[in-house]
């Protein structure tokens, strides 16, 4: 294990030194430009609505990853911080005099403060230890607050939730936020601000120590830091940003309900974050985008979307514990070594048939589902732009054949890919 050292140790060292003194702005500028341009590509309201949802999830997932990825704390009840922040914002929206004097873009700050306040209360006892105890307290507190949402009607509005109207805020440079597109830019601005702040947080002393405490709380204690307080600060900061996400939710949907607090939402954010990859800052961003697309776009295509999402999730945990981001970052050494070209052909040869095989499998799943659950006499089904009779033999033969052949090719070509992968990685020898 000791020999795996990069070729020329001086080079990365220089690079790091340069990088450590200047914050690299490149990705942020690209992100800002993309955020600004996207609505010109997707002009219809539903795309904008979906993107709004995506960016809100991005903030929430990044906040969640402050705990899971950076602090090593597994929370099963993080939705409550976003939810409480959101509910607070709804109440501010309904406090007409105060709200009329408040520019709408400032509102999420209040959500953040309320999320933070709640996190301070809960964190004061839950961050004493990490691991199972923390996870279980988060589950318990999450359940309690979710249960409160139908009991404490004065604040949570019961099952109907609390709704309001964002347009009653003080106009912000003449904008009343009547249209989705205006809200889109508000959310986009917040995504940039929040993501940048969270990124910077990971560069602060307490952010660095969060990593240290995650890896080795005992050692951190012998460096003068109380593991508990380091966790507490991470927890409170995470609560703040979750609250911001809640505030943006309030602005976008103008309603908050019990679902913003319940364990399902808490579970979803865990899935999102893990799917994207907890090991990298940008992992949750990818996870949020991928999951929102699954949830809103795939669910338009098939009622089995949750089944596919579940399969994808389990497969990720089993085969790529680094998540989508980990999968991407696996290729960084290859690119650094300039050997990416070696991989193109093997990838095409393996992944293309694999993709066809997976599509074939899902076609089979859909056909089974159709045969089993569709209306009697309703034999026609449409799959991949083809309409056929699901009770005929032919489609089954085709689907089975395609799947089997495709997976067979994948299997046959997999060793070549493995070799190519090793080849692409070995020259430098780094793992």
């Amino acid at each position: 294990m000791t020999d795996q050292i990069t070729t020329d140790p001086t080079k990365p060292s220089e690079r790091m030194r340069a990088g450590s003194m200047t914050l690299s702005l490149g990705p942020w500028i690209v992100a800002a430009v993309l955020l600004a341009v996207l609505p010109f590509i997707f002009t219809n309201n539903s795309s904008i609505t979906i993107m709004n949802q995506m960016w809100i999830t991005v903030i929430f997932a990044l906040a969640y990853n402050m705990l899971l990825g950076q602090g090593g704390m597994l929370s099963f009840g993080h939705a409550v911080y976003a939810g409480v922040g959101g509910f607070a914002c709804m109440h501010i929206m309904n406090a007409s005099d105060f709200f009329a004097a408040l520019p709408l873009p400032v509102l999420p700050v209040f959500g953040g403060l309320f999320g933070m306040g709640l996190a301070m209360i809960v964190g004061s006892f839950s961050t004493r230890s990490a691991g199972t105890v923390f996870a279980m307290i988060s589950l318990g507190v999450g359940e309690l607050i979710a249960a409160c949402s139908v009991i404490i009607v004065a604040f949570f509005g019961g099952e109907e939730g609390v709704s309001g109207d964002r347009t009653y805020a003080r106009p912000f440079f003449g904008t009343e936020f009547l249209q989705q597109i205006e809200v889109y830019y508000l959310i986009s601005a917040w995504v940039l601000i929040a993501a940048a702040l969270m990124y910077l947080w990971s560069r602060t002393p307490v952010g660095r120590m969060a990593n240290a405490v995650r890896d080795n709380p005992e050692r951190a204690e012998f460096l003068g830091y109380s593991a508990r307080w380091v966790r507490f600060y991470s927890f409170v900061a995470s609560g703040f940003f979750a609250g911001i996400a809640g505030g943006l939710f309030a602005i976008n949907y103008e309603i908050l309900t019990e679902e913003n607090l319940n364990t399902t939402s808490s579970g979803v954010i865990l899935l999102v974050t893990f799917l994207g990859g907890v090991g990298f800052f940008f992992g949750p961003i990818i996870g949020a985008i991928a999951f929102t697309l699954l949830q809103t776009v795939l669910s338009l295509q098939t009622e089995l979307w949750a089944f596919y999402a579940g399969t994808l999730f389990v497969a990720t945990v089993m085969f790529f514990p680094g998540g989508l981001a980990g999968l991407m970052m696996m290729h960084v050494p290859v690119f650094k070594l300039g050997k990416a070209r070696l991989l193109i052909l093997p990838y095409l040869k393996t992944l293309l048939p694999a993709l066809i095989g997976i599509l074939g499998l899902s076609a089979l799943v859909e056909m089974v589902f159709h045969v089993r659950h569709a209306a009697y006499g309703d034999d026609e089904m449409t799959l991949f732009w083809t309409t056929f009779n699901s009770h005929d033999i032919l489609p089954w033969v085709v689907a089975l054949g395609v799947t089997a052949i495709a997976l067979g090719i994948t299997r046959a070509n997999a060793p070549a890919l493995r070799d190519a992968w090793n080849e692409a990685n070995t020259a430098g020898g780094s793992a």
Partner: protein
Amino acid sequence: MDLILVNIIDGLVTGLLLFMLSAGLTLIFSMMGVLNFAHASFYMLGAYFAYQISIALGFWMGLLLAPLIVGVLGAGVERYGLRRVHQYGHVPELIFTFGLALLIEELVQFIWGKNQMAYFVPDALNFSAFAIAGNSIPAYKIFMIFISIAIFIGLLYILTRTRVGMIIQAALSYPRTVEALGHNVPLIFMGVFGVGTALAGVAGVIAGPVLGTFPGMAFVLGSIVFVTIVIGGLGSLWGALVASLLIGWITTFAKSYNIEMADILNGIGIGTPENLDESLFRDFWTITSPQIADILPYILMVLILIFRPSGLFGKRHS
């Protein structure tokens, strides 16, 4: 007074049912350090398999076969899923079982659809065993009590009186040593996982007809099983039993008697605010015990974790 007796029996049934789930879960945890989120999903599978078998072969064959199938499935999950994830650490393991729970729910819906299943108590047990002050105690409940007590005794016997049990107990504390002594620890893990999930399967088989067999049945029970073993102390069989019964009785009694928050607060000397309807805390004042009965275990768990993180009977500090 009669009602108290009835409630004690009802709470016992609930508690013992919970125990059948938590016993397996706590064994699995103490052995592998895995909190199996999908445990209640195996309970659900037990009910569905038993339903399917009972259509063809009757209830009793379902009771016999369904747990076996569930156990084999569980062992398969350990062998081909969990063992693989194990190398990445505990958090991915936990997340894996979490994903598995979702997937099983989707699978069940895929196969059996989304409706309630018509899974009934067998005719042989479909009568009232006795009645206390008009409250009939169905014979099936007595049957449930006997089955769970039999399982507890059997489990205790195997763990403390047999060679396999000794090895398991040793493997609990010193897996490396046991492995060095030539025992196949991965096989033991797989076996314990299989048995644990089979126990959950039994619980599903006998609870399905009473509590309903539907895709949400795992979700309703899922986290409460967790709460039970955390309260009892992770890894403690006795703890699981005590916590299960405790939760069974607490929830039963809280539902049976309307205790109002206002009474409690007045009792400890806090006066009811005058215009309650306008008070921000109005909903807090009007809480009744049945309203919060099913979240009482969570309150209990949080309190226990704050003041005694290792649970009632726990020795280990995780």
